[in-house]
């Protein structure tokens, strides 16, 4: 077992299997209070939002459109999924520009404790996963393009084979849509086959766009329906009980179907809904071939399951120490962090087993400006990290990289 994986798993042992998807867990835990029977999470998303405001991040950055406009909206950019390690990488890569901009605008650089950084990460991860209402106009076009109206009506206009989608206008959460689509997919598939209709596929935010349009069809007579905080712990149990684990791997474990913990899976819940829909016929065919019954989900069960999958994806499966060693070398980290302590920066051997994304992010943010200054003096470029490299580097450092290199061994 690798060290990063070990870190993750030790956290899980302490309850990380109950690592709540931050956007679900934050308020729930706050309501429960300490010892209130909640789950352990590395950070409190709502406290992270307070940090985001208190430390002044909001002056430049927005989240889901709320906040400053001078820097990217951190809930939207970059567009793909970012694990905790990826968040560190993104922060590292953009740090010099941020510091420069802050220097120009005379914005003081606030210091973070590791706890504050954990909260901030929980907040950012959660708002990035939540997604936001889509583009209703685009959704209207999609109804035609995807030929939904051949079976469904919207406000009385369209087909009669399926329910009028306006009945769904009050459902605010994409998970409700995933649940309905999953449960009814075989019937829909059969009907579409009968009518010679192709199975439509949804890319990017198209499901969010579609839902956004359907929501606008409300007449205001029915109240909005939300979902309450989900339980990743319950989702973990469901993942096995409903048979998902029989086919799908998770975070590096092997299975007949795709690994649901990989970075390649989409960022938001509604994007995930689109993916499930797109693959529904293939999944169903595989399940029939393997004589696996198709599980049905209630709204809450689907929310729990998705909370579990998103919580698991917060951490990388594990880094690769050999690749991490190469990252350490190629990026020139050893030039400053020499194992014998003669570099400008401290040796990193003492960090063995203690590196977490939050610890690294805290150190980076608090000491980064000094590092940057020193690197400029030495005319060294600020190294940039590609996705995955940071987690490899952390794995390498957690294994006592400094020590092994001091002994002249490759890890």
């Amino acid at each position, binding site marked *: 077992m690798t060290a990063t994986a070990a870190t993750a798993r030790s956290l899980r042992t302490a309850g990380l299997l109950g690592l709540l998807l931050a*956007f*679900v867990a*934050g*308020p*729930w835990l*706050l*309501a429960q209070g300490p010892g209130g029977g909640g789950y352990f999470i590395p950070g409190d998303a*709502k406290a992270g*939002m*307070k940090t985001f*405001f208190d430390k002044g991040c909001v*002056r430049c950055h927005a*989240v*889901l459109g*709320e906040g*400053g*406009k*001078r820097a990217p909206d951190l809930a939207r950019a970059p567009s793909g999924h970012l694990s905790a390690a990826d968040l560190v990488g993104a922060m590292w890569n953009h740090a010099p520009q941020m510091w420069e901009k802050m220097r120009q605008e005379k914005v003081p650089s606030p210091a973070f404790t590791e706890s504050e950084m954990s909260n901030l990460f929980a907040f950012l991860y959660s*708002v990035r996963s*939540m*997604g*936001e*209402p889509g583009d*209703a106009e685009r959704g209207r076009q999609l109804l035609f393009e995807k030929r939904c109206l051949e079976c469904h009506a919207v*406000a009385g206009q369209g087909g009669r084979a399926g329910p009028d989608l*306006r009945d769904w206008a009050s*459902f*605010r*959460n*994409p*998970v*409700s849509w995933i649940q309905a689509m999953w449960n009814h997919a075989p019937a829909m598939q059969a009907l579409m086959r009968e009518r010679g209709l192709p199975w439509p596929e949804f890319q990017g935010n198209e499901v969010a766009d579609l839902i*956004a349009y359907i*929501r*606008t*069809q*409300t*007449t*205001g007579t029915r*109240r*909005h*329906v*939300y*979902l*309450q*905080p989900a339980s990743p712990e319950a989702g973990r149990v469901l993942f096995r009980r409903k048979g998902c684990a029989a086919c799908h791997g998770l975070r590096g474990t092997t299975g007949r179907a795709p690994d649901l913990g990989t970075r390649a899976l989409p960022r938001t*819940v509604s994007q995930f809904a689109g993916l499930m829909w797109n693959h529904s016929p293939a999944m169903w065919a595989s399940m029939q071939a393997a004589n696996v019954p198709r599980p049905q989900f209630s709204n809450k069960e689907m929310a729990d399951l998705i909370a579990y999958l998103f919580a698991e994806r917060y951490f990388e499966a594990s880094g690769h120490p050999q690749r991490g060693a190469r990252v350490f070398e190629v990026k020139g980290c050893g030039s400053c962090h020499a194992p014998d302590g003669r570099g400008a920066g401290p040796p990193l051997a003492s960090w063995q087993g203690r590196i977490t994304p939050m610890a690294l992010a805290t150190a980076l943010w608090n000491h980064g400006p000094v590092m940057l200054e020193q690197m400029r003096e030495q005319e060294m470029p600020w190294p940039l990290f590609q996705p995955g490299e940071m987690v490899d580097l952390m794995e390498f450092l957690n294994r006592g990289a400094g020590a092994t290199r001091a002994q002249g061994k490759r890890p």
Partner: protein
Amino acid sequence: MSFRVNRRDFLRFAGGGAAGLAASGVTLRGLSTLNAALAAEEVEVPGGPEAWRLSVCSLCPGGCGLRVRTIGKRAVKIQGNPLHPVNRGGLCPRGLAGLQVLYHPDRLRAPQKNVGSREAPQWQEISWDEAIGTLADRLAELNRRGQAHGVVFVGGRCGHQRHRLFQRFLRAYGSPNYLRTPSGLDGAQAAAYLQQGAREGLAYDLEGTRYLLSFGANFLEGWGSPVGAMRAFGQWRDSAAGRRTKFVQVEPRFSLTAARADEWVAVRPGTEAALALGLAYVLITEGLYDARFVSERTFGFEDWRDAAGRTHLGFRSLVLTEYRLNLVAALTQVPVETILRLAREFGRSRPGLALGGHHASTLPGDPYTAMAVHSLNALMGSLETPGGVLVRAEFEAEEPRPSPVRRLPPHLLDPDDTLLPWADLTRLPEAILAGKPYAVEAVLVHGADPVFSLPNGEQLALALQRVPFVVSFASFLDETTAQADLILPDHTDLEKWQEAGSPPTFPVPLQSLSPPVVEPVHQTRDAADVVLALAHTLGGEVAAALPQGSFQEFVRRQVEEIFAAQTGYTFTTSLEETWNRLLERSGWWAPTYSTVEQLWEQIQERGGWWEPNYYYGEWKRVLRTPSRRFEFYSQALARWAAQHVDQARAAGFEPGDDHLCLPHQPPLPESPAEFPLLLLPVEVLPLAGGDGAHLPYLEQIAGPHVFEQWESWLEINPRTAGELGLVEGDRVWVESPRGRAQVRLRLYPGVHPAVVHLPLGYGRTQGSRWGRRGVNPLGLLESQREPVSGHLQITRTYVRVYRS
């Protein structure tokens, strides 16, 4: 225009007035009056433990949250509840005056019955048992005689739940005649109905807008929620957030709101519609309007052909042919260059917002002006967008249906037969006097003083003389209460379970709720509890419809309904609110309670509950016209005209005249030679809604811009005064065809030379010693019904002014 006032001038006036508050002889006179009154009262020196309790202000429709400091059993200080979404800790002077309402020496202290006559009433205190018994006997007798429908309940300023309770009582008793007092927002409400088909009223995202064009909406003084508007105003100039909203006030008078604007446009009185359409002319001709929105979401922009093949005039043709800039400039007295510049600024600033159709809190503007202004919002695509115009969403619990379902007789005022589908209280006097469609047997009034505040209040006073039984729930003797047979004095705000729904112009559902702050000072009772007791005394269907033993139980039921709805949050900090909003937008709801009991307790600890998110673009909800679009050409007006040919003709519209259905400038009256000046009433914040003159706190700050307080004053342009040979401080007669009144003259450069202004709220003849001063301008004004909407208009009265 030949007259101008800049901000410096105004500040000089206002600053001088403020200094006067501290040092002028007028103030000392006021204080000595107050002291003389209080000397007769035994004032308890506060003692005992200190506590802070929450409540809700009902001194205007804004419904701000209050935080009240108590020492022992006395309330000693009021400030804003920082968690309340409407005011976030802020408060206006009216809210601060709540203490003087509570401890006012002239309050009605116990139930009373009139043992004299209506003309010469003699009030005798009675017990609550006798009072409720008398009313119950009277209502039971009417019911026995099959005349229950002849009971009218006038509901004024009170919370949403009390309105619900009174309405439910009346329906269960057998009368459809629940009437609410008119609001200054009724003009905009008319536009919302005629152009959007929406009955809920409009809301405005003031905080989010980048350009506000206000046509006389005095939103810093008494429009909608003044404190909420002031909060938005504060955020427009947040340089730290890099934002600057331009605010333009179009108004004949340099009001406090105009003084705080970036630009004041002194328009000729009554020509706001023409100016709005002149702006539309520029937006259309220069292509600055949102062509896509107009194409996809509006009806009647272009000329159009109906099913019979007849071509109708569209908004574009109307504006381009009839509102060319030279014509508009001549009519409005606003230069062409100004119109061009304003239109270009407005057209290039997104989101922009136009407000209008309002004279004062209780006096709606004319619907065509409101339609013209609202059409600017449609042209700019500012409907259902952040920073634009929204349609209010209220949390409505389901009303229990009586069992068996009871069929009520038609409404006394038959709103189905009028253009706007809501009953207009100003029609009540005519209905009473005519005895049609049936006789009014009893009138119950709560939270209102329509005899004083309606433009036709005098007519109502005459009509009430014909009503066999009149009941008032007032806390103070007022003009309407003076007509009553029975007075059941209500608690004041701090003595009762206090609540308020979402205030006017606020877009999302909200329910403020707080328990009493102090014990009742006098032998008064919460009118809601009285009505519940009445229901139980009457028994039968009425008791079944209202089984709750107290208003506390009634609002507890509402909380249970909120809990069942599984939505919204109890009031909280701005930061947590942001978090909740982010969650809700993504479909998650994470309440801080898991049981009804927890919700009930949290609501009391925090002051209420609300839904923080507005969902934009719910077109099916917000556009309910026949075309399902915003209608520049109102089909509701077309339908009304087809059914009321004679009325339309009397209004100047021959059958087939499309102008009736389109926004347009109503004709202006000619001033008669003997009455050369237009008299317009004005509303000042301390006396907003015509209420507050009985409170010394508010009297002291009524007119600082003209150094005036405790008395009515007449504002006049110095040049006009000079032409009349009048000087500052003269006692003058203001004479209209209806009568004359004596007031002190105040020269104010911010007044249009052809106009004089009198403040609303003065001139009571009943009640508090401090309220019985000055002149009620409504007594001088001639009210005329706007021929199409039927709204009473009071902006067409000309007067002469001369030294007394």
